[in-house]
């Protein structure tokens, strides 16, 4: 091992401190962890969480065991902290923890933002499909287009969709949900993922006289399978103008659907395609054709978008040439359709990254101060190294490597702590925040997290780089010192 590496390591973890007084360290860890555990219990009690957990948990023994597990985690954490403080000088330990906290925050924030993006991606794909074929207006004779789409390899489903808004009255309670169709007369209807989300009743029962209701909407209106609802629709006004007496459609609730996305479940009903066409005054049209692919990969989706565009071009030109001036067919990905939401998420993630990075930069300044102090304290040692034959660059490397080691240890601890916190995020957040708040504002049932390798590479690389750079200035100072002057330093 090159001696600057060896000496840098020894400066951080001196002989005689490694594993020193392990028994005393463990004893200290026990006391401190109990103290912290009492504080945590106090926080849980003051937030009425303890009472709620006590009431909600069937087995009190299980609750006690879970609290015991909490103490064990606290003890493990305190032991690690204590061992680090025992193994390395105080300033180095503080530098390590600074980096640890910075990396923990970065990993946590980025992974949660990735989780949100991923959840939205899943929701968009599940509820809207991978691609949407639309026209400038409405799509006439969608079956012709669907046939052309199905020729493209990789397409698993192409279904015509009508959508809109309806008025709904149940037991004198009004609602104005979105409405979406299922082509129940097509065998492909069951291939739609939403068809598998019916939690009460049956998707197979959906016909021209029935309706599926989103679970949130059903709960809000206290609706159940078998109940009847009145559906009003915008065309009723047109019919009234033609002196027809428009009547709401009375439909039977045959199923409750839960997609997992509150935005859909709270405010959507599902009708048969034929019925939705009828109440919109259409016979053989569709607002769009939802295309689903075998592979969710975005790259694959983009490739097939191009393929589909080329495949539909002749049909599109033919329609326009035949006089359908709104007949030009467009192919959009789910990402293009939901561009605004995805862009907002990307911006939020980027902004959070750049804000959180400040923590790492502050920690790097801590490293710089610690190493600069070390250069001053070790001035005579620098002189000795010079007298023993060390070159200035090698002396500089000792201090630069210390910064690197601090960054490395801090980063490893930070990644571990971040992943651990994310693993138990539901329990931690749930202990202090009402999960219904998360549901209400973020539209998901659980706090989403997704790990992306590139984020880890970015965070680890940046932290490592900045820790090393923090060591460069003290290293430069050390290299400039003259051995003879250092030896005379008092």
């Amino acid at each position: 091992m090159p001696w600057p590496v060896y000496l840098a390591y020894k400066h951080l973890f001196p002989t005689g401190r490694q594993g020193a007084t392990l028994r005393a360290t463990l004893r200290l860890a026990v006391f401190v962890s109990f103290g912290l555990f009492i504080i945590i219990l106090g926080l849980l009690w003051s937030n009425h969480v303890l009472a709620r957990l006590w009431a909600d948990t069937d087995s009190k023994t299980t609750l006690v065991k879970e609290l015991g597990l909490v103490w064990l985690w606290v003890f493990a954490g305190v032991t690690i902290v204590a061992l680090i403080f025992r193994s390395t000088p105080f300033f180095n330990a503080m530098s390590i923890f600074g980096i640890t906290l910075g990396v923990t925050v970065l990993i946590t924030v980025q992974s949660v933002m990735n989780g949100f993006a991923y959840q939205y991606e899943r929701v968009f794909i599940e509820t809207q499909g991978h691609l949407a074929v639309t026209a400038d207006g409405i799509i006439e004779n969608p079956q012709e287009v669907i046939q052309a789409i199905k020729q493209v390899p990789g397409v698993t489903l192409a279904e015509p969709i009508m959508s809109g808004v309806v008025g709904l009255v149940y037991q004198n309670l009004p609602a104005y949900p979105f409405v979406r169709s299922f082509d129940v007369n097509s065998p492909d209807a069951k291939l739609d993922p939403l068809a598998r989300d019916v939690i009460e009743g049956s998707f197979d029962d959906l016909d021209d006289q029935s309706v599926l209701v989103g679970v949130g909407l059903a709960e809000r209106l206290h609706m159940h399978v078998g109940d009847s609802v009145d559906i009003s629709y915008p065309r009723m006004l047109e019919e009234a103008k033609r002196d027809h007496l428009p009547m709401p459609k009375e439909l039977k609730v045959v199923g409750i659907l839960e997609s997992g996305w509150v935005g859909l479940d709270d405010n959507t009903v599902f009708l048969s395609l034929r019925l939705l066409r009828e109440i919109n005054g259409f016979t053989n049209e569709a607002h769009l054709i939802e295309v689903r692919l075998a592979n969710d990969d975005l790259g694959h989706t983009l490739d097939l978008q191009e393929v589909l565009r080329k495949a539909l071009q002749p049909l599109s030109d033919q329609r326009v040439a035949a006089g359908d001036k709104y007949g030009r067919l467009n192919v959009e990905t789910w990402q293009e359709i939901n561009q605004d939401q995805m862009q907002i998420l990307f911006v939020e993630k980027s902004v959070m990254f750049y804000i959180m990075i400040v923590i790492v930069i502050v920690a790097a300044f801590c490293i710089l101060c610690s190493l600069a102090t070390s250069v001053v304290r070790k001035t005579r040692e620098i002189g000795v190294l010079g007298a023993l034959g060390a070159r200035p660059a090698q002396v500089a490397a000792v201090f630069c490597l210390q910064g690197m080691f601090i960054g490395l240890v801090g980063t490893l601890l930070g990644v571990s702590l971040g992943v651990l916190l994310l693993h138990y995020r539901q329990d931690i957040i749930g202990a202090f925040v009402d999960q219904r708040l998360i549901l209400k504002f973020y539209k998901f049932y659980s706090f989403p997290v997704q790990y992306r390798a590139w984020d880890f590479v970015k965070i680890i690389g940046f932290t490592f780089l900045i820790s090393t750079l923090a060591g460069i200035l003290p290293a430069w100072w050390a290299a400039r010192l003259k051995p003879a002057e250092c030896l005379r330093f008092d």
Partner: protein
Amino acid sequence: MPAPILIAAGLAKSYPTPSGDLPILRGVDLQVLPGESVSIRGESGSGKTTLLYCLAGLEPVDSGELHWDGCAVTTLDAGARARSRAKSLGFVFQSYHLTPELDAYENVLLARRLAGNVRPEDRSRAHELLERVGLGKRLRHVPGKLSGGEAQRVAVARALLNRPRLLLADEPTGNLDEHTAKEVITLLLRLCSEENTALVLVTHHAGFAALTHRALRLELGVLAVAASV
């Protein structure tokens, strides 16, 4: 007669001050034969440490020539001097200057690390040297747990690890009591003799100077034979 291991000819060194250059060395001539021990005494501020640092190549000289084992040191750049110093020179300081984060064994081996890779024979030699200086049972003690005399013995072992042809000692007993100082000096001279290492010893102590082969005095920037020791 073997060639001198150290040849210093006309070494001159001065320090800049606000009122002009202050000459410290005014043409020092010194030759040391292999295995020979030479002591240099002088009053405080006479320039003994400066001379030693110049002989070690740690301080650049204003003029003169310096040769280590036939190699012209004054013509080498700082990096080459450092490399040469690591292989050919040993150094013992007044304040021991052991690395506090390393134990005795690791401190001794540090000299080898600076000179290149540590080989198994180096580890054996480090063990052996620490035994010879009487610290065979204190290998794993850090400097904070060693007495002044013990720390200086570790420094002596470190200085001899690479089998240097020349060892420079700057008042190695300056911080020790009389009894310990005598033990350390005796040890240093004996080991240098056994290793055939030339020794240049800077000391205030007349009695210790008398133990060397040759005693010199640094006066007015030049070396002269000591009138009596």
